């Protein structure tokens, strides 16, 4: 089965207050060593796959540069990464090649580089079309920057665009959210991602919210109910505009669903490169997941991989807590070929009874309420915690 490749570039010009990802602001001196290690790992990929007990194809049908901000790297560094990928894998002609971009970082030379290396999909971290909201969380762009970037990308032939929005940002209101939704629809971008602000102690804003303080505009964050309403509004508005929901956070016009993201939810193989990058390969037993060190120091110092065998039980759990994220749901008849589902039947019945899941023939899927409470649903599929 063809692979997905993920290249993580965890560098940013500034770190956004809501960011709970391992990205940060680093000096340019680090970039070169970082790119060195990635290139080395790409060259070593077949050996690593074998050591980890996984089966890796050379064929690749999706490449995804995520961040952080991949375009913060020098053109020559990006160039090197692309060349390494071309040399070490058989990237299919029809492959989906995505780069995540921060609006305002797309110079003419970057766009030219994209064209040269067949980048056919760009994901823009817009988050909000309301300038006050974007700047309150530390984004460096405004609405016109975004619109300008979209025009320039289209002019360069890159039309498969994703725009990210976040519901629950400081200062956001039902009205301002409607405005962002109208704007995103008006761009005619074929793919939209809608996230809700995650409040945890891994981001500055999250910590401040938990502490009940006022830094990072935390006291202007809409409450849980309003944020949930915003999400529901987004589902409705986007559907009405022909952008249907296919996953909890992802919406697309038919045929524009992200091939790369689908790999994660359908347990197809992928390899990740860079700090805290995750890979999954099929193995003789079931599957194997492995990842690189989660700090930059350890990563550039050459620390080795974390390794996690997915046995049959874990694979069964994943099938549900990943597969149910998709609107198409999980086909029990199909899954029953691979796994023993007896343990799960009463749980599924109870979740259907609680209107968190619905069943159609042999397919179960989340209800609209279940989507907003999906963690509560997924938790039930895990065997009792050890």
């Amino acid at each position, binding site marked *: 089965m063809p692979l*997905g490749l*993920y290249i*993580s570039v965890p560098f940013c010009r500034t770190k956004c207050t809501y960011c709970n*990802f391992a990205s940060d602001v680093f000096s340019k001196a680090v970039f070169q060593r970082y790119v060195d290690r990635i290139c080395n790992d790409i060259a070593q990929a077949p050996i690593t796959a074998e050591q980890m007990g996984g089966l890796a194809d050379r064929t690749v049908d999706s490449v*995804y540069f*995520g961040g952080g901000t991949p375009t913060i790297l020098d053109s020559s560094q990006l160039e090197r990464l692309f060349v390494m990928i071309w040399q070490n894998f058989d990237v299919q002609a029809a492959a989906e090649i995505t780069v995540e971009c921060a609006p305002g970082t797309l110079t003419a030379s970057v766009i030219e580089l994209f064209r040269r290396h067949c980048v056919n999909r760009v994901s823009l971290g817009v988050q909000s079309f309301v300038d006050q909201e974007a700047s309150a969380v530390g984004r460096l762009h405004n609405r016109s920057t975004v619109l300008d970037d979209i025009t320039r990308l289209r002019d360069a032939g890159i039309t498969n665009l994703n725009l990210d929005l976040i519901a629950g940002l400081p200062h956001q209101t039902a009205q301002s959210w409607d405005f962002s939704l109208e704007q995103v629809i008006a761009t005619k971008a074929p793919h939209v991602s809608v*996230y*809700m602000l*995650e409040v945890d102690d891994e981001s500055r804003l999250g910590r401040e919210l938990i502490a009940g303080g006022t830094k990072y505009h935390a006291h202007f964050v809409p409450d*849980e*109910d309003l*944020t*949930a309403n915003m*999400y529901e509004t987004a589902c409705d508005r986007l559907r009405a505009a022909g952008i249907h929901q296919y996953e*909890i*956070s992802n919406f697309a016009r038919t045929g524009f669903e992200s091939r790369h*993201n689908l*790999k*994660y*939810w359908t347990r197809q193989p*992928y390899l*990740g490169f860079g700090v*805290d*990058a*995750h*890979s*999954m390969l099929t193995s003789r037993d079931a599957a194997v*997941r492995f*990842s690189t060190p989660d700090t930059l120091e350890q990563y550039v110092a050459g620390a080795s991989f974390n390794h*996690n065998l997915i046995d049959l039980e*874990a694979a069964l*759990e*994943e099938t549900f*807590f*990943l597969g149910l994220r998709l609107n198409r749901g999980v086909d029990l008849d199909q899954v029953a070929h691979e796994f023993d589902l007896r343990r799960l039947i009463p749980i599924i019945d109870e979740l259907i009874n*609680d209107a968190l899941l619905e069943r159609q023939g042999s397919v179960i899927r989340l209800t609209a309420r279940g*989507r*907003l*409470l*999906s*963690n*509560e649903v*997924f*938790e039930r599929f*895990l065997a*009792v*915690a050890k």
Partner: protein
Amino acid sequence: MDAAFLRNFAIIAHIDHGKSTLADRLLELTGSVTAREMQAQVLDSMDLERERGITIKAHAVRMLYNALDGQTYQLNLIDTPGHVDFSYEVSRSLASCEGALLIVDASQGVEAQTLANSYLAINNGLEIIPVINKIDLPSADIPRTKEMIEGAVGLDASNAVLISAKTGQGVPDVLEAIVKRIPPPKGDPEKRLQALIFDSWFDSYRGVIVLVRVFQGTLRKGQKIRLMWNGKVLDVEALGIQCPKPVEIEELKAGEVGFLVANIKTVSDAKIGDTITDDTNPAIEPLPGFEEIKPMVFAGLYTVDAHEHTQLREALEKLRLNDSSFFFEPESSVALGFGFRCGFLGLLHMEIIQERLEREFNLSLITTAPGVRYKIYKTDGEMVEVDNPSRWLNPSEIAKIEEPVILATILTQPEYVGGILALVEEKRGRQKTFEYVTSNRVMLHYELPLNEIVLDFYDRLKSVSRGYASLDYHLADYWESPMVKLDILVAGEPVDALSIIVHRDFAYERGKALVSKMRELIPRQMFEVAIQASIGAKIIARETVHAIRKNVLAKCYGGDITRKRKLLEKQKEGKRRMKRIGRVDIPQEAFLAVLKVGEDSN
């Protein structure tokens, strides 16, 4: 040694007024401890004692002092706990002395605790030597301190000894004053044996070690003795004194103080205040003053992790080996599972036990709201004592209820009187006296229901007085009061561990505060949850925890499925650690809501 050269004395002092430092200096000056052995606060051996600056267990240390008159005197320092919770132990320690040093901080003045213990000493007929400490501090005010000693304690302070225990200034005068002013013990070593037990502790090698003061006769190694209150007959295996290291000796004569080992298995067999006599030639009467100590404050103790229940029981048993004043019995709660109903002498005692359980036995505990023991007179004429809300009677069976009342002594500065009066009134206090003991010190005597003290009184008092109020109390009375049982219901199910007994007039306010605190502490669930307070079938307050709207993980972070799984596992584990009542998951901290209600009202 001739009894004329014996001096037995105690030290009375408020926390931080310098008792332990002075004791250390006395040990040094008499050569009982060399500089090399010196460790701050030699006598407070428990970590908890050192950290908190309090004494929990008594000690008796023998020093030899060469006085200016050329004679060598045997000084026995009986170090006692100072806190009100232990006033019975203190009274027995004081009864073992002929004199006491009253230490007062020259800048702080007399505090309520010192006052109470001074009165105990006066009532026991002790010669009290006022010692004014910390005279080296710039803020020291010796005339005013003397004025307070005279005004509040009623002692002549004109010949108070002025010292700095820290620098050692004046400390030799203390030794001279002990010798000159404290009378030697009376008593005849040839008479029938009467020795008072004034403390005991459990030693894992030797069993119970008992501290005794011999009043009449002589206690000898090998002697067959009888404990007069419980009738047990034992052989004296060892006798000794602490210098401060233990030294074994052959006999303790009338007037002397020391320790005894006699194969006693638990401290409850050697009750404080009991009299030891000779089995074959017993005394006619025991020494006066024995009381069975009764716990005053009650609470349920549960482990956070139900699997630790057995460890909790073992820990409680071990602590009880050393502390007969606290009691426990198994109880079970629908909400919290299996635990223990415990009785304590007071709040400090409760805190100490809790802290030792958590620290020394590494247990994580949930304590239910502390309460008191009520006397309930039933309509059929029977009287029952109830300290557990779950055993409260049906209102139709109750003719009247009596609640324990304390007499509280509060010493403070005039500027805080307003706040304190408002507090004690709010707590249903009745004023007994109000007097200025000096121009800058007010002494209040209030009768207060103990029930109102056990929840948050100390903290509130501290906060309204910015720490400048000291409190002492003793059980004084019972009042007939209309007490009711307030229940908390979560999603219609009563949560037994949250029930409290409260005065009828306060039930509404308390109920409202409690449900609103619970609303903050109970996380949103998959469905709406009603939290109600009720008295009997009547709902008096209600709050609603709205149903959870969202719990979603969005981003996939480059396919990091492991992180997603970990978060789901953590969520599942978090629920497992909550207590499930009906269909509602209640976090541990919600069970402490009762204790926290007062915090916001400050």
